[in-house]
């Protein structure tokens, strides 16, 4: 996983609430067996409409998505995160994320930032008016900055540390091998097994 310290980029304001993962990446894209190449599937249905914000030439190269509340609801597909990343997004800002989506994003180094709806509104207004306006997402200072706006955000210390250092969860967990083995040794015999061993 790539480390995330601070990022500055132009934004895409997405004024929709309840954007579910079926909208972020439709199911037929889930047939791929790799983690890349999902950029063309991102918001596929909406992108057929040439007025859709992602299709506007001035949004090209934008890296921060400023979304409406309840972003990432629905299916647990991690492909939604990969699609956003493959497209070039580094951070998503919303007042509320669905749990699984949030977990997936932080595991992949896509920073999901929770801000008050008022601030999200202000960021959307700013970037709607001025497509050149940049947003800085500073994980070290836990702060989002844009012209006339400074807002701090929360992120638990553990997730922050992993993101800042780009650490992979599995290697961290494997350091607890002894604890896992000790737990396994005392599991009750009535717990089911899928195979005879």
């Amino acid at each position: 996983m790539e480390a995330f310290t601070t990022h500055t980029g132009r934004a895409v304001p997405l004024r929709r609430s309840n954007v579910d993962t079926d909208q972020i990446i439709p199911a037929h894209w889930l047939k791929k067996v790799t983690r890349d190449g999902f950029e063309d599937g991102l918001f596929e249905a909406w992108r057929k409409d040439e007025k859709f914000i992602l299709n506007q030439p001035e949004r090209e190269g934008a890296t921060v998505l400023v979304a409406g509340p309840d972003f990432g609801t629905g299916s647990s597909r991690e492909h939604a995160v990969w699609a956003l990343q493959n497209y070039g997004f580094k951070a998503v800002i919303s007042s509320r994320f669905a749990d699984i989506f949030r977990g997936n994003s932080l595991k992949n180094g896509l920073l999901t930032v929770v801000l008050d709806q008022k601030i999200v509104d202000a960021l959307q207004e700013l970037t709607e008016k001025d497509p050149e306006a940049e947003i800085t997402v500073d994980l070290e200072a836990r702060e989002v900055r844009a012209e006339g706006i400074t807002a701090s955000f929360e992120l638990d210390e553990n997730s922050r540390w992993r993101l800042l250092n780009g650490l992979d969860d599995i290697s961290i967990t494997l350091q607890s091998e002894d604890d896992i083995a000790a737990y396994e040794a005392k599991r009750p015999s009535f717990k089911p097994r899928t195979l005879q061993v």
Partner: protein
Amino acid sequence: MGRTLAEKVWDDHVVRRAEGEPDLLFIDLHLLHEVTSPQAFDGLRKSGRQVRRLDLTIATEDHNTPTLDIDKPIADPVSRVQLETLRKNAAEFGVRLHPLGDVEQGVVHVVGPQLGLTQPGMTVVCGDSHTSTHGAFGGLAFGIGTSQVEHVLATQTLPLVRPKTMAITVNGELPDGVTAKDLILAIIARIGTGGGQGYVLEYRGSAIEKLSMEARMTICNMSIEAGARAGMIAPDQTTFDYLEGRPHAPKGEDWDAAVAYWKTLKTDEDAEFDAEVVIEAAELSPFVTWGTNPGQGAPLSAHVPDPASYEDASERLAAEKALEYMGLEAGQPLRSIKVDTVFVGSCTNGRIEDLRAAAELVKGRKVADGVRMLVVPGSARVGLQAVSEGLDVVFKEAGAEWRHAGCSMCLGMNPDQLAPGERSASTSNRNFEGRQGKGGRTHLVSPQVAAATAVLGHLASPADLSDAPAAAGV
């Protein structure tokens, strides 16, 4: 202070706990399917890791599988690659797999419980959000992303932050003709698609205690549609009776030890939930969705709402967009909505009781002209059971299509899809735009409403069938 059911199960699975870090939880059962596992196996391969506990892992094929001609090669090359990838991965790593055509194949959330692999007090995960289904047995069961699938494969654990708990107490008794599906749709409409976020929901109260295991699974299945990762119901005699004698249920002394433990799995009297919602079962009636998220629902007797009636601006906008997509007018009676297709199936309502309920209503009747009805058992075993009871014949005689097990029309990944603009009444769990096929319009309903709708051609409840027994009263 006492603990809630969720807290007890959580505490029993903590492998490691340290200040300021997520708890490391042990996972008792890991279910796999073809869609969310390829990249996880790839990750293992790249880092030279093995599956730590093959004996706690099981895979099945469901999302991409066709429900017709299953003995022929799969037509869609991309789906075929995904299924072949799972078969290769299972063979290479030694994972137990039930492929298409196997008697234990089916939707992953139907297969686990039916084998008796899902038991009270367990932690169950799967790269699929409807893993919440398994919470019906009183375990912690939740969907995970592909990175977490890889993590569980490699370590049989997951680092997780303890969720908050919410009690959803359903008092009284569901009126006749009102099902678990109507109840969960009403709960989601009440608390919203984000209402359960950050919580494990515990469904309790007398109405829940009276439900069968299958109905409990329907409820827990849709917890995710309320934003919660998991839903659970305390195990009781209904749970034990369902499990006893299943292939993977404990036997002999193990059974006694298990039951003794399972009996401790209930929320203590003095435990406190972080939130509580109370529902009176008697006030409920058949419930359907009119919009494009599962929270946009109303009693069947109601009308399509007017977006202008929403105070919240983003809800108003969402309702406007939904009506436009669904091709509906504000104020239109829900019963006047005509459908093209009826789908009975999925991990929400594709179990034997669901098929029996639908069959009972279409028996001796005909599916309306111009309507196609698809009946898809949730698993191959459910299909066999239905055939042994003659339900397939009942459906076919009524003019419905009887199919092989799989996710089918629950999502547009296999050949069973809606055409653009086509409208369905579906017993599945998601009415998102395009979920059942590009441009398809979905109304979520119970199997009973689905069957009545198929016969009448418009959204309807069993009581609307002209020759319905008078007692139905809904």
